[in-house]
């Protein structure tokens, strides 16, 4: 994980309650270097806006307001080991 990704993930944990309170459910939010830099009601719209501003979306964290992220999971995917 790159430093930027880690910073953004940590920032999201800190910002999440405020994001859920401030933005309508489902709104797409872009976080860069720990700060909210843009938002839009649709992902395509957000990506276009970011690119128009010279920001590379793959370097940012994009989350949705009101959507709880899955951060831990057990994946079963049993296989025949014989």
């Amino acid at each position, binding site marked *: 994980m790159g430093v930027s990704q880690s910073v953004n*993930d940590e920032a999201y944990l800190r910002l999440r309650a405020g994001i859920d309170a401030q933005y309508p459910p489902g709104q797409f939010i872009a976080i860069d270097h720990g700060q909210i830099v843009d938002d839009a009601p649709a992902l*395509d719209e957000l990506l276009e806006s970011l690119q128009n501003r010279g920001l590379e*979306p*793959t370097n*940012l*964290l*994009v989350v949705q307001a009101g959507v709880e*992220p899955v951060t*831990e*999971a057990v994946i079963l995917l049993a296989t025949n080991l014989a």
Partner: protein
Amino acid sequence: MIAAVSEQRNPYKGDPPRPWIRVQLVGPAGNAVTVELIADTGSPCSVIIAESPLLNLRLAGATGMVTNFGQLKGGWLRVAIPEIQFDAHVIGYGGDAVAHAAARSDLAFSGVGGLPLLRLLAFGGDNDEFWIGDR
């Protein structure tokens, strides 16, 4: 007049036999890669593929996930299934161990398609095949 039913039907494949779906992952430049994913309603992840293709195909970053297969990287993916007119953005994950485990059943499998993706579709199965359709 009865409307035509759009669906994708796939005979179980692999050892052990797996239900599976064929999807296109459309990258940032519009480049589409067709992959076969084990359909797993027990998986809480929409899509899991190997890390490298995830990083190449993701449109934006997303939160990662800690699993029993290790840390998975996250990214927003565009998933298209042309035969059922499905086209949506979902959070996908990259994990080589998961992709490797899927390929142990059949080398054609690139990963897993889980419940968050399947519930955007109609899906089902019988003794011979697994199917998905438009809702």
